């Protein structure tokens, strides 16, 4: 008999997270007639997906007829430095156009070409103009369309609910989950044979981040604790153009669209420095003079691509190097300049919400002055290891889609590939979870003793006297991770981080919170610390093991890619029991071998 009182309900499919992937998954299982529940830590429609600006990458060929899924696939694999799960990249490139068209049938209003089709824009790493978009607020359009779709289908949504643990049965199969309602602090349990994790990212473990308070790696940790595996956790994308100044906009991202539309990067001497940082892999397709680059914007056949549009990791590293060499701005960034290159009218039309946001938040007029930008923690490529076709994890009944899943983007994600990832794999996770339930899977009764233990741990900080504040622990964790496991890493710092994380585990175990359970942000943060700590440990362990530089993982002591390292993923698991203080095992495992047919795509390109 349970000690703690909880309210309980039963479903067929539980979706944790209400961003693009979660909502898209819920559409699918609801369409199949299954009882579906969406659980979200915030209000519906507030998920981090709204922050995506540039667009949805899909080889629709509306602007350049030459575009097709094979080119998109190749761009994605090369952007990811070939560490990607090739099958995910393949499915993604093949299915993205249908997922975009489907949104239009659900009410989305994309920008149009002159002949009335969906307009597509250029973006870093994409060979052709490929991003379906709505000005620079594409993520909002996507979330609103899916939100409205889900509401019209009558899906149950539990808002402002934090999931603490995925519960499994004696056979290791999913049985449900336990969490609490943030407004009341009341504990809740849900039973279901299948759970889809769509919880997004982990950025809140770093100091300079574009992510909101929600991005604490809950799904990553929940999966690992429940017996699933994580891969590529060392691969974190630092977006090259996050604002570093003024304070009110620090961490805010400047869409890559600014560079696609003519914006260039300059150091404090005024030099357009990206020409000095073109890696051999991209030399053939990148302009080698300003004249050539400037011709490209109007006509892609008149010149090769400007180097500002290299993949994100390349640009972020270049900026980092410039700043370290003493050629940065007073606040430690570089200048992103579109003001001197395009008319005010052009900028306002093409980048309306960028213009509006900087004007209002910071008093910066981007049509007259350059922006001060620098690399900002933005996205984790790594995540829960899943089967490409089904989004299934190792735990029966547990699925993962979107940012929380790993593999699709390899070691570096191309801009625009995130929104399409959400749609393609959100749908696939919804279908696979439905197949699993329709195949006869049922939920075992929840383990009451386990539920009590989870609740005991969650309320312990409220009962503890004289422990440490969760805000202090969080701040120290962010600074430590930023300093030691940031954009440029080195062996000694990573070892220091590993040791520091052991101390953090002790501190988290002693955290104390004032106040009650009802809408108490201090308590909420205290319950987010275990997952932040878990992902920080995995990222650090992955970074220690990957003795090379590749994509979103750069080692100062191993500055180049290593062919052997490119053949493995580092896989994390907790074989002796899940929990933020339990041991994490990290082993290399070979990446999925690409089919011979797909390999020819890369030979043709050479």
């Amino acid at each position, binding site marked *: 008999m349970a000690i703690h009182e909880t309210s309980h309900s039963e479903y067929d499919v539980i979706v944790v997270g209400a961003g693009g992937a979660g909502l898209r998954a819920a559409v699918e299982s609801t369409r199949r007639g299954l009882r579906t529940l969406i659980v979200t830590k*915030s*209000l*519906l*429609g*507030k*998920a*981090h997906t*709204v*922050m995506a600006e540039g667009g949805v990458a899909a080889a629709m060929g509306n602007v350049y007829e030459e575009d097709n899924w094979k080119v998109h696939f190749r761009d994605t694999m090369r952007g990811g430095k070939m560490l990607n799960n090739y099958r995910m990249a393949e499915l993604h490139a093949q299915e993205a156009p249908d997922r975009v*068209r489907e949104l*239009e*049938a659900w*009410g989305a*209003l*994309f*920008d*149009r070409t002159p*002949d*009335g*089709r969906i307009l597509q824009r250029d973006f870093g790493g994409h060979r052709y103009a490929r991003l379906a978009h*709505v*000005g620079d*607020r594409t993520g*909002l*359009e996507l979330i*609103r369309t899916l939100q*409205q779709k889900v*509401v*019209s289908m*009558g899906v149950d949504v539990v*808002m402002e609910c934090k999931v603490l643990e995925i519960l499994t049965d004696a056979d290791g199969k999913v049985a449900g989950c336990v969490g609490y309602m943030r*407004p009341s602090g009341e504990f809740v349990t849900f039973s279901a044979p299948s759970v889809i994790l769509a919880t997004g990212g982990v950025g809140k473990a770093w100091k300079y981040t574009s992510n*909101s*308070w929600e991005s604490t790696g809950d799904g990553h940790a929940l999966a690992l604790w429940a017996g699933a595996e994580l891969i590529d956790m060392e691969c974190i994308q630092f977006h090259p153009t996050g604002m570093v*100044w*003024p*304070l*009110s906009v620090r*961490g*805010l991202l400047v869409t890559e669209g600014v560079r696609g539309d003519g914006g260039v990067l300059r150091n404090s001497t005024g030099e357009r420095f990206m020409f000095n940082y073109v890696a051999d892999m991209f030399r053939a397709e990148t302009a080698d003079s300003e004249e050539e680059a400037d011709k490209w914007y109007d006509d892609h056949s008149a010149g090769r691509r400007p180097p500002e549009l290299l993949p994100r990791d390349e640009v972020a590293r270049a900026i980092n190097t410039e700043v370290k060499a003493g050629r940065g701005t007073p606040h430690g960034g570089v200048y992103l300049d579109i003001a001197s290159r395009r008319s005010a009218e052009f900028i306002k039309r093409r980048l309306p*919400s960028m213009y*509006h*946001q900087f004007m*209002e*938040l910071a*008093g910066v007029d981007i049509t007259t002055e350059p922006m001060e930008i620098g690399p900002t923690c933005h996205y984790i490529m790594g995540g829960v290891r899943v089967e490409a076709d089904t989004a299934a994890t190792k735990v029966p009944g547990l699925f993962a889609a979107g940012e929380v899943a790993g593999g699709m983007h390899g070691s570096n994600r191309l801009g625009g590939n995130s929104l399409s990832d959400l749609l393609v794999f959100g749908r696939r996770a919804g279908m696979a979870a439905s197949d699993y339930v329709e195949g006869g899977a049922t939920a075992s009764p929840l383990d009451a003793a386990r539920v009590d233990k989870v609740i005991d741990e969650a309320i312990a900080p409220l009962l503890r006297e004289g422990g440490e*504040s969760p*805000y*202090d622990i969080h*701040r120290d964790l962010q600074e430590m991770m930023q300093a030691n496991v940031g954009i440029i890493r080195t062996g000694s710092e990573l070892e220091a981080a590993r040791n520091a994380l052991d101390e953090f585990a002790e501190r988290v175990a002693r955290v104390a*919170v*004032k*106040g*009650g359970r*009802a*809408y*108490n*942000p*201090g*308590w909420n943060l205290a319950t987010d610390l275990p997952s932040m700590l878990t992902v920080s440990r995995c990222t650090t362990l992955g970074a220690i093991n990957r003795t090379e530089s590749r994509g979103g993982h750069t080692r100062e002591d191993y500055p180049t890619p290593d062919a052997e390292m490119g053949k493995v993923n580092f896989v994390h698991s907790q074989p002796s029991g899940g929990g933020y203080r339990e041991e994490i095992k990290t082993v290399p495992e070979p990446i999925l071998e690409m089919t011979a047919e797909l390999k020819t795509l890369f030979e043709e390109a050479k």
Partner: protein
Amino acid sequence: MASDLKIRVWRGDSTGGHFEEYDLERVEGEVVLDVIHRLQATQTPDLACRWNCKAGKCGSCSAEINGRPALMCMTRVEELPKDLITVTPMRTFPIIRDLVTDVSFNYEMAKQVPAFNPSPEPEGGYRMQQVDVARGQEFRKCIECFLCQDVCHVIRDHDEHKAHYAGPRFFIRYAELEMHPLDTNDRRELLRQKMGLGLCNITKCCTEVCPEHIKITDNAIIPLKERVVGASYDPVAWVGRVVLRRKKRTPDEAAVQPAP
């Protein structure tokens, strides 16, 4: 440490509350939400406020700052009067705790909007011109901060109207659907009979507080009123109804219900 910033925050829950005053150091370039976060981290860890993106894109941190409905993340401290900043929760919605209100009214209204129902997709996909989608795009900029709902006097001090009043946020949603080049549903009678479109007397307060600068009154509510009047009070249709004794359609009859 110099305490040169005074902020007064409403603290309490559904049973009642009071103002609490805090002194902090002024930090250059902050927005009000930064100050609230600083309070949480240093002085009052359980101060409740909702927020997500801190970039004016998610619409979570709505409150009333010096009496004016605004997003805390979009209000710069240096633009406020120097002596005192007062932050209170949105008044139109029930209090949960401190600055957090129960906005479920809006989610209930969202459920009542008859869904988008497009014409069948032609071979080769839908075609729409930019000029035709631009009207709806303005309304789809809405970040659902519900400040327009908060400021609207029809419900701000009249809870009793909430049962039959969609409010500005949903009037722009209806307008967007009405103006969508592909939609086939008719929501005009619903707007007139059940959604309280007539209660709005176009004081434009909603337009004034909209952080996305959507021209709610001019571009959505007034055109909707015209369309509803056109459908409901058209003299030719009136003659038709009288002479042919045709009954006026109910909202449910008027709307084309979409396939589930």
